[in-house]
């Protein structure tokens, strides 16, 4: 086997990282810089029979631009190293340089799958700072739209899950469901994805006729459609076998790692921000908190998947109650145009489809937040991948990653 002539020159001109030194297979050191930590040195040293497999940032199943360096031995994943920062936009700093109203549109694209929840937490913390009382109708509208978007997010999750395991059809059924919800919300807010709907002290506009008629249409068959869609996958032996006993997470570890949302509930811990730290009008509403994986071994990927489907049913219950109990009244509190809250600190958290999403705001009395820290659940859950994926097969990394349902926008901020 001889090397093609002029190879080294050409390759090094194109890409300094892929420098071939004479013979084929002689690569530059990975990573190209001296290792910085002990963990890095241990990870980037190969034992016999091992090799690195670079997955991402442009890989179909890393849910965005996550890069995972897998250390594999044949098909077995020996170790892995998630590398972040490919979607970093500095959202926290952007928020600190905009006034309080502007923050809502800055933080909106943080987690593009469920952006209303990204508006909800900062809006709540600003309201605490400003001592604003939100009208009850506005609170009900927030819960109603929020739960709709939670369904949209979980339904999309189901499709992605199937796609990552090689099933082609469910993603399209999922998108039909999601599209109906998103169109409905577009009729209300004017946007399909980044709604920019919540305001400090209420919401941007009252419920309109088109939204209500679309919602009525959808509600009349939502549960039936949901059961039909999940039947396609949940009764599929291949799918269930791929998910069972993969990426087990027990309750104690989950608590220690700061996991929240469906992932901790699927590990047997009934923690839900809506019940644990009630906000908005959730105390008035009746709904259950589905819990799975209560055994000592905790929950696996299948539990996490099924739990999200259970949550869709609960969300439909909540929407039903919201529609029945919706009070009359204004949707916006009376507020000054320019906001200068008292100096102080506020923390508010909501239960987003991925878990506890919170913002910690420090005000210095000006019209911009002095510091704004965003707590994103996806970032916390990404800590788990090293633990859950180790000693699995390459194919299982997809099952585990998809079942944690991360969104890279929120992770990289």
């Amino acid at each position, binding site marked *: 086997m001889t090397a093609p002539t002029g*190879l080294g020159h050409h390759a090094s001109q194109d890409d300094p990282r892929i420098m071939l030194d004479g013979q084929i297979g002689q690569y530059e050191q990975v990573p190209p810089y001296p290792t910085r930590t002990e963990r890095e040195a241990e990870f980037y040293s190969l034992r016999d029979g091992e090799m690195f497999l670079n997955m991402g940032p442009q890989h179909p199943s890393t849910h965005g631009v996550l890069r995972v360096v897998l250390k594999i031995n044949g*098909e077995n994943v020996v170790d892995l190293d998630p590398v972040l920062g490919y979607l970093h936009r500095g959202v926290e700093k952007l928020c600190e340089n905009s006034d309080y109203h502007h923050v809502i549109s800055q933080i909106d694209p943080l987690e593009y799958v469920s952006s209303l929840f990204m508006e909800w937490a900062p809006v709540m913390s600003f309201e605490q700072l400003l001592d604003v009382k939100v009208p009850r109708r506005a609170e009900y509208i927030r819960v109603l739209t929020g739960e709709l978007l939670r369904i949209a997010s979980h339904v999309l999750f189901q499709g992605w899950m199937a796609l990552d395991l090689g099933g*082609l059809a469910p993603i*399209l059924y999922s998108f*039909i469901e999601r599209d109906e919800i998103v169109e409905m919300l577009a009729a209300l807010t004017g946007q399909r994805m980044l709604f920019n709907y919540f305001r400090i002290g209420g919401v941007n506009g009252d419920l309109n006729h088109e939204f209500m008629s679309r919602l009525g249409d959808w509600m009349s068959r939502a549960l039936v459609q949901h059961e039909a869609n999940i039947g396609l996958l949940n009764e599929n032996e291949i799918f269930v076998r791929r998910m069972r006993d993969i990426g087990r997470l027990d309750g104690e570890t989950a608590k220690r790692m700061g996991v929240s949302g469906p992932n901790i509930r699927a590990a047997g811990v009934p923690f839900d921000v809506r019940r644990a730290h009630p906000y908005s009008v959730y105390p008035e509403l009746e709904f259950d908190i589905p819990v799975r994986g209560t055994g000592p071994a905790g929950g696996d990927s299948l539990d996490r998947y099924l739990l999200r489907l259970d949550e869709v049913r609960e969300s439909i219950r909540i929407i039903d109650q919201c529609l029945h109990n919706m009070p009359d009244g204004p949707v916006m509190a009376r507020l000054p145009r320019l906001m200068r809250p008292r100096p102080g600190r506020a923390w508010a958290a909501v239960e987003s489809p991925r878990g506890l999403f919170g913002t910690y705001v420090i005000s210095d009395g000006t019209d911009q937040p002095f510091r704004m820290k965003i707590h994103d659940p996806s970032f916390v859950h990404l800590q788990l991948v090293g633990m859950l994926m180790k000693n699995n097969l*390459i194919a299982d990394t997809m099952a585990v990653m998809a079942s944690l349902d991360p969104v890279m926008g929120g992770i990289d901020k």
Partner: protein
Amino acid sequence: MSKSLGQVTTAGKVIIPLLLVILVVGPIATYLLATVAGPVIMDVLNSNLGIVRFVVAITGVLLFSIPAAFIIIYMELKVIAFMNLRIGPDRVGPKGAAHSVIAGLKVLTKEDFSPNAADRTVFTWAPVIVFLTSVMTFLVIPFGPGLVGAKLNIGVLYLFSVGGMSVVGLLLAGWSSFNKYSLLGGLRAAAQVVSYEIPLTLSVVGLILLAGTLSVDQLAANQAGWFTNWYVFRQPLGALIFFIAATAEANRTPFDLTEADSEIVAGFATEYSGMRFGFLFFAEYVNVFIISALMTTFFFGAWNAPFPFPHLTVALDPGSLGILLPIAIAVGPLLVTLALAVPFWLIRTKAPAWQALLGGFALANLLAFGAIGLLTYISWDWVAGLIWFFVKSFMFVFVFVWMRGTFPRVRVDQLMGFAWKWLLPAALLNLFVTALAIIVVKSL
């Protein structure tokens, strides 16, 4: 004259002499060829009929494989689109029917890229090996009675040995690409195809014991008559094992681990582009047709109709009619048209006569075409065979497409475990029971 010649375009300067050659030299050459060289050529061909048959068969098979792949690709796009509540391709041709042809042309015109560090020779030849091994399998598949490329008496053996060679191509493609995803895909292909080769072959051994022949042609002929003669009713377990193992052999969903897009991007095909990728892509769909054809041939009666149909040769000699023949040709259609126009006239007596005549004419044509079709079906058994073979094969192609639209992918360990823990024992059991049954039946 010279001025007008100067005005002729460059293309014209070539085409006009060419036309002259075609018009003048062509007929003379044809006449000479037919009278002088023709008999000599025919003699040579007649004395070497085996070679002629082989060359014709190879050419036919190569030519057939491309449209077969096009049809299956289009079918897959459309059927999966229907299952996904999408429209699918609808731009090129009626209902997008020419889509896969255009896609094939696109693949031809694309850049033929190969990675810098790839092993060029192996990288170039690997897709050719994959494609040729697929296409070579066609050679012993009987498309109809007598319509078989080579009547090998060890046809089944040939099928499995040539089919097993495709893994060499996949492995070479994966290894030479200088890409870790390709390498993983190639290794997966090697492990998978070699493992499933064993239950695949064993599942047919029971069938061979029953039939007492290794010739695919003979296997097909054995299943003539009513559909109860099909081997699927005598070897149901064998048929099931064959179906599953063949799916894995062709790397189809749910066993498409070699090109699992969510795990290893495109497996062994990751670095391929242009027509090299086209070869790999075509080979995949040719494989789908081959496993469908084999399912049909081995277990579902090959080219036989599910019910015995009168295969007559037309006994009537038209020449014996004498003067009646031209009269029948001249008057027959007229009389039939007039006769068929009567009911149209009876329905609407007020309407102009030409409308009734037109209706009668259309009906007469319809009947004539139907009669010709029926006559063809009855008198030439290979036409009937071809029709039934393709109908049955494409039903299995549909099943494979259906599976692709429905199933997720299995995992590597599950795939191997299934082959060795379930399929292999089941195939052995099937073989054992078949052999025992044959001995018992013979001793009675």
